[in-house]
């Protein structure tokens, strides 16, 4: 059991507020991802759960027990850092076993547990190496091993893949998903990469300026964004935002902006949206066209692999019925 409840959590650095009244329920055994642009408070929230930052007000309950005043080590949480934070002077085995040796466990126990973790993460051959002699992916696994060995109820990941190259990132993403199924613990994961968020999470928490914008499953967020910010943040390529004045043939219900995802714009001779193609990107399996509307709003359109769109030519588009979003002047979703 490891359910987390956060109530009215506030935090400030001096006069800058970084977390405003955070309320959040994290179910046992779930994989929760905090996303948001940099400076949105996602890392601070994670570090406050870890106990590396002091809260100002509010409480953090782990299975009903308030842990917000406890030391990190007493919270039953473990953390994997962005820089891995491996101790450079220690071998892989010493790195993984450090927490146990600090807890004064005997050498045989430490050796056994380190062995088990190393096997799980396929690190057996590297136990006597120093971190400097490992590749990025291996270091990442050691960092995860150091968290696993403590057998925590909650795993915290702070942008763990951002230092890896694109290919390795995909591989590690799959490994983390796999690991999570094996360990059956609660995972909290921070990233600014919405693809990571969409692929890994059961629940995504979108943060902006220290406040929660929306909580929901990846598809909920994709289909029913609560506001323009979430709509723009989730989904790749980004949702197009068109001033309502430039759109005709829709019941606007007083909306200021119309949002359409690139995949919901179709080429249609009779389409009401007219523009000029500025750029075409062919990626093989898919293509994107970037077209400028008369008011210079640039919209992205997903094209099938075989298309006849040519740069500088006019393009008429129609919106797939029922696939547009209406946002009020305050950014809230209207319909």
């Amino acid at each position, binding site marked *: 059991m490891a359910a987390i409840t956060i109530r009215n959590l506030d935090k400030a650095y001096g006069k800058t507020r970084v977390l405003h009244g955070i309320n959040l329920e994290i179910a046992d055994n779930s994989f929760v991802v905090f996303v948001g642009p940099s400076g949105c408070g996602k890392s601070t929230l994670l570090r406050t759960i870890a106990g590396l930052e002091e809260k100002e007000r509010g409480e953090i309950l782990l299975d009903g027990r308030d842990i917000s005043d*406890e*030391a990190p*080590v*007493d919270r039953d949480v473990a953390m994997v850092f962005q820089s891995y934070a491996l101790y450079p002077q220690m071998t892989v085995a010493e790195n993984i076993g450090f927490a146990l040796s600090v807890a004064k466990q005997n050498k045989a126990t430490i050796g056994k547990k380190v062995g088990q973790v190393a096997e799980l993460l396929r690190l057996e051959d590297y136990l006597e190496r120093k971190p400097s002699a490992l590749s990025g992916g291996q270091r990442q696994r050691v960092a995860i091993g150091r968290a696993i060995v403590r057998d925590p109820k909650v795993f915290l990941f702070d942008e763990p893949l951002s230092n890896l190259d694109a290919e390795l990132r995909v591989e590690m993403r799959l490994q983390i998903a796999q690991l999570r199924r094996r360990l059956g613990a609660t995972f909290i994961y921070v990233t600014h990469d919405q693809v990571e968020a969409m692929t890994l999470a059961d629940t995504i928490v979108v943060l902006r300026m220290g406040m929660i914008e929306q909580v929901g499953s990846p598809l909920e967020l994709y289909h029913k964004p609560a506001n323009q910010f979430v709509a723009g943040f989730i989904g790749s390529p980004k949702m197009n935002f068109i001033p309502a004045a430039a759109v005709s043939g829709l019941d606007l219900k007083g909306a200021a902006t119309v949002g359409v995802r690139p995949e919901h714009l179709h080429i249609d001779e009779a389409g009401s949206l007219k523009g000029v193609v500025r750029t075409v990107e062919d990626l093989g399996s898919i293509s994107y066209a970037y077209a400028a509307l008369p008011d210079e709003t640039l919209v992205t359109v997903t094209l099938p692999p075989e298309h006849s769109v040519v740069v500088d030519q006019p393009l008429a588009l129609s919106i797939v019925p029922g696939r547009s979003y209406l946002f009020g002047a305050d950014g809230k979703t209207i319909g």
Partner: protein
Amino acid sequence: MAKTSYKTKAKWQRVALLTPGALLYGIFNFLPLLGLLALCLVDWPGIGPMKFVGLDNFLQLFGNPFYRDQLIKAFGQNLIFFAIIIGAMLVFGTFLALLLSFRTWGRNFYRSIFFLPYPLAGAAVAFLLELIVRTKGPLNVLIVQGLHLSGKPIGFLGDPLLALPTLAAFYSWHRMSFAIILILSAIVAVRVHLIEAAMLDGANRRQTLRAVVFPVLAPAFILIVVIVMVDVFNNADYTLLLMGPEGAPARATDIMGTFLFRSAFGGAATSVNVNFGMSAAIGLVTAVAILPAAIFLALRNLRKD
């Protein structure tokens, strides 16, 4: 119970880690520096009761001819001492550092040789060089018999005119590598990016040196000037070792350090004018005199962080 104990333990351990260093420094370094402010207000020969005299020590120092003349002489001679040393260091130091920055054969070997005197003890250097420059010493043998530069031996440390420059030469001999190393590292640091650019612009060697190398030497020069200044205005080891606290001959080598020492511990065994308050006052005056340089140094250090 175990839950709160980590934080409590952490707090106590922090105190335990900080305390030894803070106490050591606080008692034997920081407190005395603050103590200058209190002690300069008393008249006290080191034993017996202290007498509070207010600012009398300062009035004496600047008004009473006995002290004022010593102060003026010591300060003036200290300036001359400083000027000779800094001149030698900047001229020779820059010259030698430039030569070492070229692709000179054996430049690492030369650098090691040049650095050799630096770690030597001031006391050893003083006694060693004093033996060398004695009237019957090797240097005079070289000058009189070898090079025939002079008909008779030169009394470097006995002559009131020569004694102070000779001590300055000792200091320069001892510390020259300090200037060389700092200037050399400034040249090496600038080399890669700036010089390349200058060469691409078609500058020749002399133009490059003048336009690119010398301007970046300014910070190194300032650092050397400041550090040497702070040092020579409080450190009078060579004079104390070779000339005694009275700055023989006839106080021709008296500088602030000796004056300060004399005021607290006396020049000769028979000294009567011993006053710790006066010593503190002189220390304070010297501190104020070198304070601009000292603050500059502190700001530079903090900025570097």
